[in-house]
């Protein structure tokens, strides 16, 4: 593989677009959720303001080495995930660094940021952070399972682990999308998707009422700003994977924006309708409802 340096500015461009869109999308979804609850909600530019404010704060403290590194791990996880997957199908400049690895790299890189973040939060010594991590990790073991099975089903279906090849296989017609060729697997994956979006019924990890905001409790100023940046990038990076695997990918930016928005909206929609699960309830829910559907999807192939 010959590495061309031009890939770096191209990747940074992708990153910038996703970052800006992510901040906007976060606020819009927030607002939609608020409106569904008959509240006014935040203005669509709120996230930009918060971010600038947090970067500008001068009072900073640290609890130690890992605490300092936590947000760096977190954001590296988000940025890395985005850049290890091709964003726009067929456009070389948005293939990013996908030459480094296939789908499996993306699947496992998801954990990079979570793990680093959890470690950083742990060093703060705050029990709420640890409780949040304990809940989050517990939930993710079950939430990931239907997704992992669905991914396996899709990989078997297309006989490849390369994201680009999977998207390529879905081109030609809407009915080539995995959501139509293997609806069971996609259903299961979408259940997992809900579990990973930090919205009800699966938002016990942040649990603002009992353990104010969970793992990030102790983070403030630039640390928090880094994490907010991640909160703009990471969900979209994840949705890029879903979009590529199940919904035909995106051949240009408008389609990309639309598909990502709809995916995000789906999570928000479910979130405003359902109340929150406790951890053991969500674990059971994924095992009882998610896994059988995913298994059916696997045998569909």
């Amino acid at each position: 593989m010959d590495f061309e340096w031009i890939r770096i500015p191209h990747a940074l461009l992708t990153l910038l677009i996703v970052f800006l869109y992510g901040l906007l999308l976060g606020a819009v979804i927030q607002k939609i959720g608020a409106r569904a609850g008959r509240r006014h909600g935040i203005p669509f530019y709120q996230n930009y303001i918060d971010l600038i404010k947090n970067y500008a704060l001068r009072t900073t403290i640290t609890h130690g080495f890992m605490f300092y590194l936590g947000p760096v791990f977190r954001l590296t996880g988000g940025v890395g995930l985005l850049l290890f997957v091709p964003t726009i199908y067929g456009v070389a400049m948005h293939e990013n660094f996908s030459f480094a690895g296939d789908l499996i790299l993306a699947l496992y890189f998801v954990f990079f940021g979570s793990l680093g973040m959890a470690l950083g939060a742990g060093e703060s010594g705050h029990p709420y952070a640890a409780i949040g991590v304990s809940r989050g990790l517990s939930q993710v073991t079950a939430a990931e399972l239907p997704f992992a099975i669905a991914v396996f089903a899709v990989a078997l279906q297309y006989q490849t682990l390369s994201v680009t090849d999977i998207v390529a296989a879905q081109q030609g017609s809407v009915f080539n999308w995995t959501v139509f060729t293997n609806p069971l697997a996609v259903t299961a994956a979408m259940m997992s998707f809900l579990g990973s979006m930090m919205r009800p019924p699966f938002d016990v990890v942040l649990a603002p009422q009992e353990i104010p905001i969970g793992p990030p409790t102790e983070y403030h100023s630039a640390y928090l700003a880094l994490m907010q940046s991640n909160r703009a990038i990471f969900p979209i990076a994840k949705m890029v994977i879903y979009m590529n695997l199940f919904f035909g990918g995106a051949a240009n930016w408008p389609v990309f924006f639309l598909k990502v928005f709809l995916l995000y909206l789906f999570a928000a929609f479910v979130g405003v309708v359902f109340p929150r699960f406790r951890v053991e309830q969500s674990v059971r829910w994924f095992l009882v409802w998610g896994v059988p559907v995913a298994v059916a999807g696997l045998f569909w192939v």
Partner: protein
Amino acid sequence: MVSAIHILSTGLGAAFLLGLLPEAWRGRAHLVTLAALALMSAIALSWVLAFAFDGQQMVDVFTAGVSPPFAINLRLGMAEAALSLTVCLSGLLSALYLKTSLITQGRRAMAVLLIAVMAFCGIILTRDIFNLFVFVELSVVSVGGLVLLSDDNRALGAGFKYLIVSQVVSILMLLGVIFLYHAGGTLNIDTLTAANAAGIGTGGLAFFLLLMAVVAEAKPVPANGWALDIYQAAHPAFSALFSAAAGTAALFAVDKVLVMGGPTWPPVVAGIGLFSFVAANVLGLSQTHDRRLLGYSSIAQIGLVLGVVGLKDVVGEHYLFIAGGILVAHAVAKAGMFWLSGLVAERKLSAWAVLRKNPILLFAFATFVALLVGLPPFPGFYAKWELIHALMAQDRVVLVALILLGALLEATYLMRWFGYALKRGADLESVQFEVRKVAVVLTAALGGWGLGYVWGELSGHANLLHSMALLFALGFVVLDGLPAWVKNTVAIAGMSAFFYVSYPGYDPLQLIFASIILLGGAAIFVAGYHERGRRLGFYPSAMLMYAGLAMLIVADTTFQFFAAWEVLTVGSYFLILRGKESEPHALSYIVFSLGGAFALMAGFALASGGVSEFAIQGLSDVAAEAAPWVFVLLAVGFMTKTAAIGLHIWLPGAHAEAETDVSPMVSGILLKAGLFGLFTLLMTMGKTQMYGVELTHVLMWIGAISALLGNLMAVFQEDAKRLLAYSSIGQMGYALFGLAMMNHLGWLMALMFVINHYVYKSMLFLSVGGVAKRTGTKLMYRMGGLITLMPLSFVAVLIGIIAMSGVPPLSGFGGRWIFYNAIMTAEYKLPILIIFLSGPIAFLYLFRLIHTIFLGQLKDEHRRITEAPFWIVVPQMLFVAFLLGFAVVPGLALRHVDAYIAQFFVGGGLSWDGLTITSPFGYWSPVSIMIVTGAIFAVLLAWLVFLNHKAQKVKQFNIVFAAERPHRPETTHFAWNFYAPYRKAFGFLLKPYATWFWDGVAGAFHGVAETARRFYTGDGQVYAFHMLGFVLVVYLIAMGM
């Protein structure tokens, strides 16, 4: 050559001579006794040597110079000479040991001793049944007298009971002799055999009575209460003689008599013997009195030889090798154990702790236990191997199962006892033992090693005591007095040199395992420099394990493989036993391991059809009907070592309670022996079906469930080392799963796990062990916030958990990537789902491990502790460096293996071009991942430092705590029961079914033992009744056959 008759005449003559000496010359009388026994031994020895080296033929001696029936015929062949030598030597050593008692009792006691030894030799040498009767009577009278040498006041009762039962036996015997004479017209065994006297008229019944009389002397269950009471009450030196010499003589008598009776009787004798073997071993389980326990063990061993005597035709040409091997091992070890028991003041098993401070006696104890259990390189090991193969050749599967069960039970109580001696109770003050007695014990122990050499030479296999690796390990027994650091250096140098020398001969698979065993083992030894003093016993044990492992990977034949397997098992057992609290866990380990080893032995024997020298490659051509059973036996044996679920209950305790630098050895390295075995099994036998079920599919399920439950159990541990131990069960499950997929990438993934698991598990055990050394606890919730005090240990754990969890960019990800590519072509999908579930669960316990130890709240009592000891940190840093390197260039190790595996599967390999690794389905570029991740991380870190470079470090309790302030570190550190909700969701999977099952099995055996031992009431009349009942029942059974 001195005539054999002088073995008898010397004993008899010296006994008469003692009568002529003045009563006051007690010391001189003792010298005469010793001289006579030495002379008898010398005569026997000269014959043994003549038979062994000069091609001496068997000789017959006729008293009075005429042939039978007018004279008595003695016969001396190799067997007679060797057994007489055993008898005379045990007499000599016992007389030496008994010096004080004999001198106190005077010359009469010495004369009785001489008569006893002479009588035992007579029983062995004579070919005349009346003469046999005479010698038996002589032995009865002298034994009855010698029992009284004991200080124990129960000895009188025991001697009396013995006389009662002996009278019953004598009556049977005399009746048998009379009627046989009536039937055959002669008393000579050979003439009677030729005349088929047992087939004429009353000859049959007469023969039966004679046979029962000699069998009774071999103390079969249940007609042996008298013998147990003697063992329990008599002087231990006499018991030594009674067990070693009387037992030997009785067995040879059975062998001689049995030829007269035709084909009906050998199976009966075999049945009696094997029943005694198993029953006595079951009964031994519940014994708490050391000498009575030895009594049960004696009865069991003699029963086993009796069984072999009965199976003479089945075992064929190996008869003398097998029966002799078990018999001499028993004689030497049992005599040695009884002599040892004379040095111990109290009779409960844990009282043997007095030996703990005496390395020589401990070495002797270990030798005797190994001799009795039949571990390599002792005669019982070779003999058992041949026996099982000989039986398998004739399809005697039930007998094989019985013998192995009995052997396992015996190993259980002996090993338990050894564990008690080493670990139970407080350390006692060092006791001074009499040099004379210690010398006697040591002579027996060295004799055991000598016999091991002899049997190795006779075995027809490679003599284990010629193996360089084993000799090097045994050399550490001699070096044990040196300081630990010297031995440590020798060990590291030796292992590295061994690797360097052997390196060119390895194939890629062996090379991977050898690197882990030899170089990896040397790396862990670096931590050993931390230990001060001499660290007695550590190096011989550890090196024994490594020697076994090194021998294992180059084994060509099933015998070599099995011998190496046993060597590494024994070494690791001693190693595990060294931990402070590890005694019950070490026992559990050795029992499971020996059980697994016996499954291997049975599997190998079945595979080879009873050919004892069988190439491992031959496993690929096993006959179709035997193949599934061979596969199952071998797989079970190997999975015992990898602690597959159900067979795993030994692992957590054994790994967690071992010493700091032992845990990485037994976890990081030892477990790989099981995987190597599974590799070997699958490479040779491949896919095998049993009743239509694909066995590799079953293995896949076992692997997946092990992975899930191992990980799940790890999540709920509070003890850091136990957490790591359970995690090993999960990791080995993954590897087993990979192997059982039976495709190219599955095997590659298993190998990746072999390498990775060694590195990160060794590293994590060392880090956690170092932390435990500083904090004084292994319980994680009692730690916390140690990151600033122990930064290097933290880094090691951090790198370890990233690698283990499979998160890029470290090498664990490579394992996962290969896994996903492997399952793309797997035939079975369902077990894969379980693996999917167990993967993320690993995050739970890994996070917990690092969080509760290093993050969170520092406890007040830990504020002054420092980084883990230097020498424990050094290997961790080596591992960190290796992990980072291996993450970038996995190809260095893997691509050769990848090519090697290609010969077993068509297609499906990886291609290694440049920096990218490509499979048929995807691609992976470790260097690119590392660079991209590193670059992003560096940029963001620089950005944060730019923004926050003035960040102020605040104190521990300076945290946002809504309207309150934290109370104490203990209440603020969220650590105990970390995943409480998870337990609610998954707790039902954690019920310890396996533990309940094995507890039930153990409880059942102990219950039977506890109930059955009440059968021996201690009443002489009851014992006489037992004897008659026994004879009657045997008669009825024999008639029914």
